[in-house]
Structures are given as structure tokens and as C-alpha cells.
């Protein structure tokens, strides 16, 4: 039995598959001890079956956001102890006269400098002062630090000093993270930051995963979801915990990729709209990766699925500012007090606006288990509408269009700004509110088609059980097109490939199920951002082409630099198969119709069918306007869209105007 477990802020979701049987299960999360909900749920869905578990955990992410990681020390070159604090010397809020950085992960008294220096060529300029290093380690032991990050200048070009420190730390029992192992790339602040984040979360993850494994029955396996879109064994996740940070939304994108592929759509923009925020990502046959992520003020340079987040979701609050402009978000009503219609809130949210327009159906919201209070809305909408000189209906649709503008902007960042035309993509909508906004957003961006998968509320857990096992490796070589031949590149890759094969065979993969993908981080000489180019026979030309696509021009007179080499080792597991349903008639069965309501579209009340999604079959067509309800989400098919159900139960909306 294969089980995907996704720990979220409110719920822990379980998706399981045994032979042809699929099942889902939801449990309230237990934030004080997340393992409790995970183990309870596993017991419930798996029982005594042999289990293969893939788990998306927020333990590492939360440890950083809440500054509850291990007491962490840093060893670096003497004179560079503050690199981690100074960062790039800029401030993230330009107009904040009282600007402060986020709290430091390693306080100044836990940063230690040791004499010794390596140059850019890897040549040792000054040997490591082992005597001083020993003294520093004594101090670290006395400081009760549980974990230590080691980052020396140019350590990736010559790791001997970092290795020496590891050797000297010996059996002190302090966890150690070496920068050349975590991220063998140049730019000392970003490398230090990534290493420090790893050191900070390793003991926590060790503890958490250790607990899970101890409670699991013999013979069960546990893998952990990484932010790069692949999973990895729990043992590896204990060493390289940094790769699980921000992995939360990755499962959803993988789910989008895999479900899209099965349904015949390889170019997708995933749109995950939740309560407080919306995550968007672009899939161009495979997911887009970035090495420019940040968490809580710290850069995190490991490759990650490029997911752009915007502070607009169902709970986003609408307010009129002093200049008379209508703002929506980023403030959110959260779970408490929640939107007005939940009974307690007193500020209008996006969810309230949807309900006001009739697009949310109170008796079907969460299967009718939560009663929405439509009657609470009137006075709040009238009040605010009067204040800005609109009718309450105009206000409600206005709130949605402002929220949609923010989400449209997010999609432009990941598509248009990177040289992609949204018209060539399918909008893959999920999350609690994705189905309500998908069609409107598609129209704004001229996206022709929207896909809402089955179980859109737990897509992340589905993605986890479909993910490959992925290991990423990189190494700064700093060459240019003249002093780097294809043979040399092969030599560089050989070492990484050996590691990849070894690591994946440890994960249980036979060679025939392993794919090695080679990439180069390239740029024009003098540039300081690299782009990731697949290593093909004509990679220099590949770079010019990709550069032109991304930035609008190519310059073949300019020297091309190869900054980093990058290997992605992919283990392909046996994946669950989906069954194709037989096509039935266009007209949905009568049982699917739940009644008719008046719903507002473009300021007009329209008679709209309410339809039970789980009673729809392959081939059924539903012209807009209509509303599909299911347990965890609502799909709004506006008058300008036409929907049908495909052979895998996905709802496809086509924008017709």
C-alpha cells in the first residue's frame, strides 16, 4: 500500500492506493507534535498492511519561521564572521525608516573565525590554523550548541579546511554541516546561509523522523518530500534537511504535472488558491526550477520548484484606504475570526464576496458540515459600498476583480516575465478556492482552458505518491567557452554522476530506473545571474537561445561562461496508475442536478444550475453558468465558459468568449 501524507496548517491529508482502490482521509493537524496526527492517520488508513509512505513535512520550514531550530554555531574564516549578518547589505523594505532584519539564526557569540585561506583557484593561501580550530571547538562545546555550520571562502574549490574541521569535531556529538557538501557553489553569503539553515534544522528533523520511524512497523518505508519536486529517503532527509524547507507546495505542482500528463496536458500553469495565499507555478513539460528562494530573510540556494506566492486567498480582507482605493489582502482573516459568513468575523473577505454573489452554496460548503451565514453579510456590504459610492453587488464583484488582479500579476511573473505566453498553457486550478476563480483568471490572461482535478483540496498528497526520487548536485567550475571542452565537462560530471548513482542505489533503485540529467549554469561574461541550460551537444547555442527567450536578446560576440555544473539524478519508482472511464452521454444524469439559484455575473443575476461533481461522468457537458459542488471545493463555471468532464474525472472549462 502506498500512502501520501501531507501535513498542513489545519489538516493532515492522507491519500492511499492499494491495487486499484484509491482513498482519502483528513485529520486535524497537531502542530505541537505533528507526528501524532501522522501516526494516528497511518494507523487508520494503513492498519497492518505493509506501507510505503511519502510524507510532506513542515517541521523544517516551521522551525525556521518560528526560530525554533537547534542552537547553531558557525565556523568560518577569521574576519568573515559577520558575512551571515551583513548579507547583501541592502534592506528589503526601501521606505522603512525603522528597518530591522529578521532575527539572526546564529547570534554573534556563536560565530567563530579561524585563520586559513583558500583562493579562487583552490590554491591554499594560508593553512588552516588547527590549534585555533581546536580552541574554537572547545568553545562551541561549552556553548551547548547542538549543530555547527562550517563555511570557508572558496571551500568548493578546495574543501580541505572544511573537512579538517569535521575531523576535529570528531565525536563531540555535534551535528555538522559543511558548505561544500550542502552547496558547492560560489557566493559566500548565499552558501553560508544555505548551510546555516541546514545546520539549524537537521537536529529537529532527526528527532522528528526518528520518532516516526521508531513508531512505524517493521518493513514499512518512509520517504520525505523535498522542495525540488522529488522525494528522498528519511535517512537522507535527516542529513540534508535543507532540501525539505518550503516543500509544502511542491506536492501540488508534482500532482499537477503528473495528472496533467495523464490527461494529455504538458504545459500547465498551476494555480493553488488557499485561505491566506495563492501559489502559482509554470510547467513547461517539466516543472520550472529556481535557485533564488528565500525564507525568513535567508537565501536558500538549493534548486527548488519555482513557486510564486501572493498574499491573496479566500480569507483576504477587503478595505478602503485613506486615498479611496479598494485593497484586498495581504491581511487575512485567518481561521479566527475567519470571514464574516463563518459567524465571527467583521471584515469582508474574498469568501464573503463569493457568497454574496451566490457563487458559494451554503448548504454544500464542506459537505454542509459548516453552516455559512449569508444573512450576516448584508449590513457589512451595504456599509462599505456606501462609503465608496458603489452598489453592494458592484463592491462584491470589485473585490473579486482586485483579488484576481493580484493573482494575475503573480502568474505574469512566472510566465510573461520569463518569456512564456500564457495562451499556450492550461490553467490547472486546485486548492479550496482555485475552482471558483480559475475561469476568471484564465479570461484575464487569455488562457483558453482550465483544468480542475478530482479532489482539488488534497492534490499535494496525491502529488507526493507520484513523485520521482530526486537528488540534485552542483559544483562551481567558473570556465568560459574557450577554456572548457566537452571532454573536460564530462570529467567534471563524472564525479557528480558517481555520487548520484551511488546515492540512488542506496535509495533502492536499479540502474535501469535511474535517469541522470546534466545541466550547466551559464551566463555572458560580466553578468551575475546564471540561467540553467540542459547540457546538449550544442550547449553554447542552447544558452544563446534560452537567453533570448528569457531576456529578449542574444549576443554571440560575447564570451559565454560556464559557472556551475548541475546534475539531477532521478529514480523513477513504480507509479500508481489511473483508470480511464468510459465515455457516456453529454447530458449529466438527472441525479447530478441539485437545483437552481440566482448567481451574479457581470452585475446581472443569472439562473444557474447547482450540480454535484461526484455524480458527473466522462463526457458530460455543462455550459455556463453553473456551479459544481463537492466536499472540499466549489467550481464556478461562468457564462463565458463551457465545461466537460474528461475520462479521468477532471473538469475542463473552456473559455468561450
Amino acid at each position, binding site marked *: 500500500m502506498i500512502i501520501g501524507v501531507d501535513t498542513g496548517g489545519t489538516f493532515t491529508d492522507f491519500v492511499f492506493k492499494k491495487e486499484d482502490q484509491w482513498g482519502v482521509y483528513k485529520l486535524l493537524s497537531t502542530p505541537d507534535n505533528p507526528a501524532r496526527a501522522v501516526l494516528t492517520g497511518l494507523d487508520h488508513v494503513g492498519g497492518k498492511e505493509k506501507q510505503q509512505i511519502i510524507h510532506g513535512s513542515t517541521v523544517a520550514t516551521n522551525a525556521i519561521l518560528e526560530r525554533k531550530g537547534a542552537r547553531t554555531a558557525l565556523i568560518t574564516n577569521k*574576519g*568573515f*564572521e*559577520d*558575512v551571515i*549578518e*551583513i548579507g*547583501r*547589505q*541592502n*534592506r528589503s523594505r*526601501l*521606505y522603512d*525608516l*525603522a*528597518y530591522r*532584519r529578521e532575527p539572526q539564526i546564529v547570534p*554573534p557569540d556563536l560565530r567563530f573565525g579561524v585563520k586559513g*585561506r583558500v*583562493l*579562487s583557484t583552490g590554491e591554499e*593561501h594560508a593553512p588552516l590554523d588547527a590549534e585555533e580550530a581546536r580552541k574554537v571547538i572547545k568553545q562551541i562545546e561549552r556553548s551547548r550548541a547542538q549543530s555547527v555550520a562550517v563555511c570557508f*571562502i*572558496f571551500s568548493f574549490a578546495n574543501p580541505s579546511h572544511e573537512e579538517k574541521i569535521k575531523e576535529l569535531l570528531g565525536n563531540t556529538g555535534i551535528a555538522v554541516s559543511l558548505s561544500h557538501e550542502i552547496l558547492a557553489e*560560489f*557566493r*559566500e*553569503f*548565499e552558501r553560508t546561509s544555505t548551510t546555516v539553515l541546514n545546520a539549524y534544522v537537521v537536529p529537529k528533523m532527526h528527532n522528528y523522523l526518528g520518532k516516526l520511524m521508531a513508531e512505524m512497523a517493521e518493513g514499512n518505508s518512509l520517504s520525505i518530500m523535498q522542495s525540488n519536486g522529488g522525494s528522498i529517503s528519511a535517512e537522507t532527509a535527516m542529513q540534508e534537511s535543507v532540501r525539505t524547507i518550503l516543500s509544502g507546495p511542491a506536492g501540488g505542482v508534482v500532482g499537477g504535472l503528473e495528472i496533467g500528463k495523464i490527461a494529455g496536458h504538458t504545459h500547465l500553469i498551476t494555480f493553488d488558491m488557499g485561505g491566506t495565499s495563492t501559489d502559482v507555478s509554470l510547467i513547461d513539460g517539466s516543472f520550472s526550477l529556481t535557485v533564488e528562494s528565500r525564507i525568513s530573510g535567508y537565501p536558500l540556494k538549493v534548486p527548488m520548484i519555482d513557486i510564486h506566492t501572493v498574499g491573496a486567498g479566500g480569507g483576504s480582507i477587503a478595505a*478602503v*484606504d*485613506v*486615498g*479611496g*482605493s*479598494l*485593497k*484586498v489582502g495581504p491581511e487575512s482573516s485567518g481561521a479566527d475570526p475567519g470571514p464574516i459568513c463563518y459567524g465571527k468575523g467583521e471584515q469582508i473577505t474574498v469568501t464573503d464576496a463569493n457568497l454574496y454573489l451566490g457563487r458559494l452554496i451554503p448548504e454544500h460548503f464542506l459537505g454542509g458540515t459548516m453552516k455559512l451565514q449569508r444573512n450576516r453579510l448584508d449590513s457589512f456590504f451595504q456599509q462599505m459600498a456606501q462609503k465608496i459610492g*458603489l452598489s453592494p453587488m458592484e463592491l462584491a464583484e*470589485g473585490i473579486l*476583480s*482586485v483579488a484576481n*488582479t*493580484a493573482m494575475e*500579476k503573480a502568474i*505574469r511573473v512566472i510566465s*510573461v*516575465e520569463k518569456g512564456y505566453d500564457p495562451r499556450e498553457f492550461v490553467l490547472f486550478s486546485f486548492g479550496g478556492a482555485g475552482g471558483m476563480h480559475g475561469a476568471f483568471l484564465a479570461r484575464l490572461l487569455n488562457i483558453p482552458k482550465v483544468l480542475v482535478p478530482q479532489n482539488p483540496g488534497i492534490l499535494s498528497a496525491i502529488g507526493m505518491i507520484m513523485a520521482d526520487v530526486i537528488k540534485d548536485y552542483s559544483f562551481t567550475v*567558473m570556465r568560459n567557452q574557450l577554456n572548457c571542452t566537452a571532454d573536460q565537462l564530462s570529467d567534471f560530471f563524472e564525479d557528480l554522476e558517481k555520487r548520484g548513482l551511488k546515492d540512488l542505489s542506496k535509495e533502492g533503485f536499479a540502474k535501469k530506473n535511474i535517469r541522470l540529467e546534466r545541466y550547466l549554469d551559464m551566463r*555572458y561574461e*560580466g*553578468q*551575475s*545571474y546564471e540561467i540553467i541550460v540542459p547540457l546538449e551537444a550544442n550547449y553554447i547555442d542552447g544558452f544563446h537561445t534560452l537567453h533570448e527567450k*528569457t*531576456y*529578449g*536578446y542574444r*549576443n554571440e560576440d*560575447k564570451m559565454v561562461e560556464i559557472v556551475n555544473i548541475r546534475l539531477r539524478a532521478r529514480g523513477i519508482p513504480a507509479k500508481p496508475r489511473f483508470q480511464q472511464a468510459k465515455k457516456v452521454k453529454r447530458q449529466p444524469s438527472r441525479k447530478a442536478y441539485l437545483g437552481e439559484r440566482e448567481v451574479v455575473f457581470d452585475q446581472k443575476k443569472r439562473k444557474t444550475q447547482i450540480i454535484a461533481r461526484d455524480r458527473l461522468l466522462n463526457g458530460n457537458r455543462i455550459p455556463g453558468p453553473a456551479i459544481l459542488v463537492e466536499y472540499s471545493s466549489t467550481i464556478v463555471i461562468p457564462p463565458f465558459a463551457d465545461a466537460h468532464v474528461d475520462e479521468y474525472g477532471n473538469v475542463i472549462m473552456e473559455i468561450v468568449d
Partner: protein
Amino acid sequence: MKENPILLEVFKNRFSSISEEMGVTLNRTAFSPNIKERRDSSCAIFDRDGAMIAQAAHIPVHLGSMPMSVKSAIENVAMEDRDMVILNDPFKGGTHLPDITVVAPVFAGEKAPSFYVANRAHHADVGGMSAGSMPLSTTLFQEGIIIPPLKLVEKGTIDRKLMSFLLNNVRTPKEREGDFAAQIMGNITGIRRTRELIEKYSLKTVTFYAKRLMEYAERVTRHMITEIPDGTYTFEDFMDDDGFGNAKVRIHLSVTIQGDRATLDFQKSSPQVEGSINGVYAITLSAVLYVFRALVNQDIPTNAGVLRPITVLTRRGTVVDAQFPAAVAGGNVETSQRIVDVILGALAQALPERIPAASQGTMNNVTIGGIDPRKGIPFAYYETIGGGMGATAESDGESGVHSHMTNTLNTPIEALEYSYPFLVTEYSIRRGTGGKGLHKGGDGIVREIHLQSDGEITVLSERRSLAPYGLHGGESGTVGKNVIVRDGKAMEKPGKFSSALKKDDIVRIKTPGGGGYGEKGDRSQETGGMEHRA
């Protein structure tokens, strides 16, 4: 057409998207680390009269000056479709020569341009007497090539003659050419996005909301000014010197708040000086715009509306309104910081809880040039260094960070050592340099470079003799220091100097700490009137 609060918000987002997308293109396509890595650039969109609608400013010093560049381009050149105008003349819309602006019209079916887009980037070298073009100059002519508003692009084609002329007057022509191309690309993105917006909503609607957004920013700014108690607040502070023996150069301000209007009178400031710390009027305007924009506690578009309730008075021929052919290289980077200090110092009397003590008050401009022995080609390194921020009523000041008029990134040590014949030997926080007080000022930075070849250095720095002020009993921050160590002997250098360097010299720049806030041990948070002693 009637203003609709929903479309107002939608257009706010759309216009800011345009300037941001221009910035993404410019930064990503630029060649020089100075623009890409340090993001020393800004992009903006303007209406048909050259009034700014929205700006993606990474660098506040560009705020007030971009509109003046665009106005100058409009006045001096008849732009047709697919033309672009380049300029850097500080007395025709520029600020200092390295900041080069490229302006492009957006035609939308009318005879004249319906909108303009423009971007400005700091170029690492524009010729002149010293590498990096941030010299210790006494006249504009020493600072580099002066570009009046000229067509760089005509009907979509780059003017090769002009380009070749420009490139022949700078030290690093290839890099410049790449950066010009990036600036052109940035504008092309802006033009395309503006046209898409017009197609979607009609020219009439887009023009209408451009105006409404200026009024919107104006309303919000007026609202903020009414929260400042009425009265006249006077303050002065000084530049250390101009590098040519003229010490204590005065910046004087009387700010009068009356209801929803503010008048800032700088007329009693010193006459312009021989050295390059003269600021043109655009600099002063930028500093004012920065402070008022910072006092508005919400996200508004930075546009022409913000300045409407504000009057800025200067006297021509002073350090805050320098006239041709004054040397201005340092006015942009150094005097602009002091103008901010003075505006904040005056407003601190009106808003003691909101205004921080003085931040480091300098950008610590360091330029090192020479021949890289590893490659046998010339190099020009330019960088600015962060320092301490002033403490506030709420908390200590931040350490090791850029403040106020700049926000450029540092160059990573490993990137420096790949690119230049340098060995960086220290990069740390200069502990204990923030002014003491109830809340202490942020600490400065120590940056130390061990030269691996001969070269020449120019430093333009401030707050080396007159410290950043504390407020309400808080102490001043510690002044900065510039040191060159040769053969084991440390030589202290002045705030502004140029000097030949020998292989194995060590350059040590220690930047100032920020001022403290409130008397130490005084937890009552009493903040009465404050007195400034310079």
C-alpha cells in the same frame, strides 16, 4: 468617466507591473555587476506631459530626478515612434554623469506620444579623470562624458555613430554597450506593456486612471502631512568637507507644515563648492520625495502626486541647487544623504516618535582601477559600503546596511576575487560604533582589501569628521575611517582622497555607526523638544 475605486486599485497594480517588468528586463539583461548584482537602476512610466505615473525604484536618489530627465528629453528632442533619447547631463535633467537615463515615447494612435517610459542605470565608468568616474573633481568636465539629450535609437535602429562616440570615451566600452542594450530592452518591455494596457482598456481609460492615480497619491500624502503638527522646524547639518579644503559645508532647512501642505526652504545652505559634493536641484527633490514617501505608511505608487502638496525652495548656486559647471559626482551619493539627515532632523522636532536618529550619512564610494595581472586587461571596481542606521523610539538601529538614498547590494567576496586582483581580508561589523542611548545606533562595517597588483584608488566618503547625530539624548555614532596599510604601516587618509596603490597595499574602509536614540537608562521614553549641536 467616473472614478471607480476598484479600477483605481487595478490600475495601480497594472502601472506598477509595467515599471517592475521593465526593471526585471533591465537588471537581468545588463552586463555590468554594478547594475545587475547591485541593482543600481530604476524604471518608470510617465504621462504625455512627463508627469510620473509609477516608478519601480531600487534607488531612492533616482526618485525625483527621473521626471526631470524625461521633461528634458521632451523639451529638447522631438521623439517619434521607436526613437529613444539618452542623457546624463546633470544640468539638463541628470544628477551625476554615471547615471545615464534612456527615455522612450509610447505612441498609441495619436500624433504625439501618449506616454513615456524611461529607465536610469548607474554605469561603472563614463570616462573622466579617474577610473570609475567618481573622481575628486572640481568641474563637471573632469567627471566624464557629458551627454545632452540625444537620440540613441532612431526608428528602432541604434545610432552607431553616437554609440561609437560614447564608447570611445569610456574605459570599459564592451560593458557599457551591453548595459545600453539592456536599458533599451527595458524600455521596449515598457512600451509593449503600456500598449497592451491601452488595447485592453482604451487610451481614454488608461489616461484617465493615470491622472487619478496621481491624485490618489496626492490625497494620501496630504493626509499624512495633516498628521504632522503645524509649525516651522529648523535644522542644519554639515558635510565634512569638499575634498579641497572647504570644511563644514552647510545644509540648512526650515520646514513649515501648514495643514496638508509642507514647504521646505533650503535657501540658507552654503554656496556651491569647488569639490564634487554639489547637488543639483533634482537631488534635493529626490531626498524630499524619499522622506515624505517613507512617512506615508502604506503602499502608494511613487508618482508626481506625492510632490504636489510640497514646495521645495532653494537658491541657485548653492550645494543643494548647483549650477553649471559645478563638479557634482559626489552630490548624488553623499550630499543627498545629508539632505535627508537635515529633513529628518527638522521633522524629528514635530514627530519625535517617528523619526530615527541619523544613519551613517554616506555611501562610502570606493573606486579601484588598474591592470589585472592575471588577464593583462584594465579593471574598474566601484562599490559602496553600508554602515549603521539610526536608532528609533522603538528599537536599536540596524548594523551593516545601506540607508536612505541608496540600497545597492555588495559584491560577494568570491565574485570580487574572481573578477579583480584582490584578496579580501576582512568583512565584518564594526562593533560598538553605533551611538549609545536608550536605543543604540547600528554599527558600521569594516571592509579590507589586500591588493594583488598596483592600482589607483579614489574614495568619496563622508562622516569622517562630523558624526551622525543622536536624538533626544542619544549619543552620536562613531565617525568612519579610511586607512591604507603599506609595508605594515597604517596611514590614515581623509574622507575624500585619490592615491596610487602598490601591490600588497591593504585598503581598510571603516564605515560610520548610526546615532543613538534617547538617554541611556531613561526608560520613561520622554521625548520633549530636541536640540541639535553640530
